[in-house]
């Protein structure tokens, strides 16, 4: 289905918001501004056609439950940033890309194929009481922020402390 393309104003407004949010959270948008602006337009198009900003580089049937894992920023962004220095669509890139230490490229799809996906499952499994935690819990030693993921975030979203200030909590 086609929708009128988003206006330059809409794209610029969302670009600025995403850039601000990214930098505040310790993330970075791709410095290739033209490439990034096109992805931002893609997010606006998807927002219009599906009602949520699903990844511009992934196909969607417009079912939010099925697409929860690919609503931007997707479930796969952080592991992809860690492993490949960019997310799947390359809207987000790592510090090293920003410092021009490594190039950005097209990366493999981390999202399981349709045949292996359950609606809304994404990468996560539901924790069960008394069982081993599905993810380790990390604690920011500066502000006490807790998060459950494979590795601590690069920067604490609350106090901006760096990754090395986190300790294993659970």
């Amino acid at each position: 289905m086609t929708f009128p393309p988003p206006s330059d104003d809409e794209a610029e407004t969302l670009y600025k918001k995403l850039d601000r949010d990214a930098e505040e959270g310790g993330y970075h948008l791709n410095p290739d501004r033209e490439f990034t602006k096109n992805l931002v337009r893609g997010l606006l198009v998807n927002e219009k056609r599906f009602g949520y900003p699903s990844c511009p580089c992934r196909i969607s049937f417009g079912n939010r439950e099925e697409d929860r894992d690919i609503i931007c920023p997707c479930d796969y962004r952080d592991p992809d940033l860690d492993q490949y220095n960019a997310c799947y669509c390359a809207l987000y890139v790592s510090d090293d890309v920003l410092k021009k230490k490594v190039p950005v490229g097209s990366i493999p799809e981390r999202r399981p194929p349709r045949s292996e996906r359950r609606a809304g499952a994404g990468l996560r499994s539901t924790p069960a009481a008394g069982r081993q935690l599905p993810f380790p819990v990390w604690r920011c030693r500066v502000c006490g922020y807790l998060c459950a993921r494979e590795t601590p975030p690069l920067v604490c979203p609350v106090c901006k402390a760096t990754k090395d200030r986190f300790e294993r909590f659970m």
Partner: protein
Amino acid sequence: MNQMKMEHVPGTLKGKITLFALSTCGWCAKTKALLKELGVDHYYIFVDLLPPEELEEAIKEVEKFNPHGSFPTLVIDNGTRVIIGFKEHEIREALG
């Protein structure tokens, strides 16, 4: 696949080349631009712009060549070679 409406870009014949792409995807745009730059005869389709009733069929077609059903998927000679993602070097080597 033949029933699906593909856009044809005329050029030097290097086999049957079909690009499955998304209109919103940056890597798809780069792949499409590279094919144009190489000047090879090819077909492309923006799968996300298909009406819902044709979407399933198109994705199944992509999944035949690329089980992940991801984009861009470049199919050369009915699957003799399949290039997934914007692999500039591989595409140039295969079609340049």
